[in-house]
């Protein structure tokens, strides 16, 4: 049996897990999803989702990885060999997300360079959508090749691959930089964001819960998927990370620290963004709800607005901020690639570096279609389907396999034997009932909505190739990868 790598220290694990959880999901994705879903109401739904699904799943994934001592495919294989395909599927969800995640990091790379001269001038929106992306009006119009996005993508994948070159040991060192520095910078941006003229309007929009909005299933669906995305559950990552934990570890405590720190970071990032949105609304004389396009580009329009309005050293803070976004992206992305390469390594007994390099090259190639003018539109479609379907299906599957097949009581016993903070029947209820019911209801609702109309009115053909096809391919590829193993075993 291969001796598994372990974290340098418990602090390194907690920081790595927080680093994996804190990422673009908090600073890039959370603000626009919150903005799209009514601000304050979304916050309430997200808190409910965190405690009913996010943290219970985090405990489940840590304990599964720790008990089975392997990444997702190996862990589910040990539950029952028939479930190995599901482990591969979870890992593939993480991999596909990582492919478009790297594109967002490439945008950050470009904005870090642009920050030297504040190239966006007084119109960050125009600069982002037209100059940087050359955005087309339909995903079917491919647009021009963007060499700088390509270069950014290449740089990101090199950084991701190098960050995990020596496995958990390298990660243990890198996280001290990629978790602590971003938090310090975030504090600067919060202070500037909330002190801008008109920021109060944005903060009222962000923090005042409109309870009528909670009747809309879309808000709940967005809240659950945001929590899963942000905590990196349903990607197979936390299963792999759990497997690197020392034999003696407090799983429940770790899960709570990671879950709470991650959501706190998103909340704090929201203060900066909504403060700036209030400022934007104040300048344009428009309501906060109508001031910006609520989509994946929001962060690249709003953060430059804050940077330009800093009282001094704007280029320095600009560079630091986008380098921070880049490092946040890298530590989330290397957790995803680490999970994939750990799966490959476990399965084919490859050397760590061979597995790592293969994953890096594959991730880079899969991201290439997104370096054209229509890239952001395709990214929007893939993100919607990977989070609303891919993540939801994996989380539902985990809840059923562990909650019902393996036995939530058995897993709870294992967790409680290790942890000082104990979980009780409420965790079982969450895993066995609340999570499956919530995910099934939200999945059915989303399917009905997508049958009624395409996402954001995108052409059906684009929705099929960027969304449905990718989701359908997940279990099929999972089954194929699992089947390869069966054949080799017979030899």
């Amino acid at each position: 049996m291969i001796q598994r790598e372990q974290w340098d220290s418990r602090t390194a694990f907690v920081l790595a897990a927080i680093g994996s959880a804190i990422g673009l999901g908090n600073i890039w994705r959370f603000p626009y999803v919150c903005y799209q879903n009514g601000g304050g109401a979304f916050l309430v739904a997200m808190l409910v989702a965190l405690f009913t699904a996010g943290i219970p799943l985090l405990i489940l994934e840590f304990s599964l990885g720790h008990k089975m001592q392997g990444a997702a495919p190996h862990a589910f294989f040990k539950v029952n060999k028939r479930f190995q395909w599901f482990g591969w599927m979870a890992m593939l969800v993480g991999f596909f997300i990582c492919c478009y995640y790297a594109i967002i990091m490439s945008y950050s790379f470009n904005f870090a360079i642009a920050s030297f001269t504040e190239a966006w001038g007084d119109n960050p929106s125009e600069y982002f959508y037209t100059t940087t992306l050359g955005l087309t009006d339909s995903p079917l119009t491919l647009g021009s090749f963007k060499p700088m996005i390509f270069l950014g993508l290449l740089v990101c994948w090199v950084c991701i691959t190098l960050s995990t070159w020596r496995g958990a040991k390298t990660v243990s060192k890198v996280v001290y930089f990629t978790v602590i520095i971003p938090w310090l910078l975030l504090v600067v941006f919060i202070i500037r964001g909330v002190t801008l003229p008109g920021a109060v309007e944005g903060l009222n929009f962000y923090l005042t819960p409109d309870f009528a909005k909670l009747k809309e299933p879309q808000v709940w669906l967005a809240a659950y998927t945001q929590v899963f995305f942000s905590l990196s559950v349903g990607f197979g990552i936390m299963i792999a990370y759990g497997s690197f934990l020392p034999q003696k570890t407090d799983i429940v405590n770790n899960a709570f620290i990671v879950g709470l720190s991650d959501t706190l970071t998103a909340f704090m990032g929201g203060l900066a963004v909504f403060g700036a949105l209030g400022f934007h609304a104040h300048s344009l004389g428009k309501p906060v709800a109508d001031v910006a396009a609520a989509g994946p580009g929001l962060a690249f329009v709003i953060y430059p607005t804050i940077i330009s309005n800093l009282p001094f050293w704007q280029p320095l803070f600009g560079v630091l901020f986008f380098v921070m976004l880049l490092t946040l992206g890298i530590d989330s992305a290397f957790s995803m690639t680490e999970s994939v390469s750990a799966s490959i390594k476990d399965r084919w007994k490859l050397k760590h570096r061979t597995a790592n390099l293969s994953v890096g090259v594959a991730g880079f190639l899969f991201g290439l279609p997104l370096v054209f003018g229509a890239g952001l539109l395709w990214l929007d479609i893939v993100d919607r389907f990977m989070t609303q379907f891919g993540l939801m299906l994996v989380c539902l599957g985990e809840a059923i396999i562990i909650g019902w097949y393996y036995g939530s009581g058995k897993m709870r016993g294992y967790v409680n034997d290790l942890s000082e903070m104990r979980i009780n029947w409420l965790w079982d209820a969450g895993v066995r009932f609340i999570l499956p019911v919530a995910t099934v209801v939200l999945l059915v609702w989303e399917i009905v909505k997508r049958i009624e109309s395409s996402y954001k009115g995108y052409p059906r053909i684009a929705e099929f190739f960027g969304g449905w096809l990718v989701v359908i391919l997940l279990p099929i590829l999972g089954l194929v990868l699992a089947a390869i193993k069966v054949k080799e075993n017979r030899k």
Partner: protein
Amino acid sequence: MNTSAIIMLVLVLGIFLGGIGFCMSRLGKKRDDSDPVA
């Protein structure tokens, strides 16, 4: 800021900071205190 927004801000920060503080204070307790092997 309006009252609802202030209540929400205090509530959310209280939940997160209180929760993290509590968990941090318990970090490693059982392993250090009760593990006879250690």
